[in-house]
């Protein structure tokens, strides 16, 4: 999957599931703060990632994900994306 597609899909479920304004989803923005995530929300984030990309995130993986850019890169690594 191309990185652009990963970003598009990710933004799509974040806007839909987490009701965040798409304009706030910037590469350097903080994921936790922007989405206003609490511990329960991370559980749901695991679910939507599995539904959209077909792999299971380990909760501890979120420790190293700070920005949306980190998030995209993490998904890219998991799905074997081809950056464009």
């Amino acid at each position, binding site marked *: 999957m191309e990185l652009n597609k990963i970003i598009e899909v990710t933004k799509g479920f974040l806007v839909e*599931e987490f*009701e965040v304004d798409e304009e706030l989803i910037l590469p350097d923005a903080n994921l936790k703060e922007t989405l206003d995530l609490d511990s329960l929300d991370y*559980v*749901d984030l695991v679910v939507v990632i*599995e539904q959209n990309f077909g792999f299971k995130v380990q909760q501890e993986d979120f420790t190293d994900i700070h920005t949306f850019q980190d998030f995209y890169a993490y998904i890219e690594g998991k799905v074997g994306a081809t950056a464009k």
Partner: protein
Amino acid sequence: MNRVVITGMGIYSCLGYNLDDVKNSLYTGKSGIGLEPIRKELGFRSALTALVEKPILKGLLPRRQRVGLPVHGEYAYLSTVEALKKAGVDQDWLNANEVGIIFGNDSCAEPTIRSVDTLREKGDTALIGSGAVFQAMNSTVSMNLSTIFQLTGINYTVSAACASGSHAIGMGYHMIKSGMQDMIVCGGAQEVNYHSMGSFDALQAFSIREDAPTKASRPFDRDRDGLIPSGGAATVVLESYDSAVKRGANILGEVVGYGFSSNGGHISQPTVEGPVRSLEKCLKDAGLLAKDIDYISAHATSTPVGDMCEAKALYEVFGEAKTLISSTKGMTGHECWMAGASEIVYSLLMMHNDFVAPNINLENPDEDAAKLNIAASTKEHKIDTFLSNSFGFGGTNSSLIIKKVQ
């Protein structure tokens, strides 16, 4: 002892999704019953069910508050919003005062089944999501609504089968009467989905009159063949009389009596003696006689044995008084956990609009029902005091008496 009054009410049922629509349905004898064909595909004996739309709460509630709500919690949210509005209570008031919640609920089948389906499919509990546990607990309604409305008083759920909603109001009545609380949000909620009704269908207790859905629920009628599963939610705001007067609230009625009993016998077979004790206890609590009751909202669900036992019990206590009776379940079907609360709302609507809703489909009363004064059609009738019956599996019985405050 405090006097206990009702200052708010709200409803989300197959008769309508607000008080005005429900009042009109009650007056015109409109049925909320239809068919859900998938039930037959799944192996149900009957596809008959009340038709209740799933609410859309996106835009009304933030995501975190929505994900823990099962569908009957969504119904209850909307009925509670309406009840609080009717009571003139806003979020600022709830934040500044200790308000409790006691709701009747006795199942959360759909979220429980969906969670297990996901687990079996995915093989990982992490993929069930965060909302399922809060949706699947029996206390889901009181749990979620206390969070959404930030309530700080008593907070629990009453599970008492099809008398849950009635007992919830009875418990709230005692909490306020004793001075432990000044205001409690009470009610009942019931899921309508096939997940919750398959095991009930297994008992062959449902009507199979599928060729005429609106004729299928026939409380007290000789040709009844079973109940129709139904659901939704109903809320009443109970408040001490002193608090209501101090707030300048519009008082919709006073809870003056609560009676209860347990049959002490079979898990599903009703008795006459159990309901008689509940009725007599309720009258005694209210300090009233049978002749003082202007209307009885019967539990009668359209099952052959249940209706017969209630008819005998009503005749024993109210036969001489010839009290006007109807069962709204001809229109609604059996709203189960919600019924004890919704039927208080229905009766309050009748009381404030001077009519008795019809016991629709009562064409040929059976031998016991024929001895009673049952309203087969809408009656213009002044109600100052009414009694509402609710009975459930396990032999749990509950009766409430509500009186108009002049």
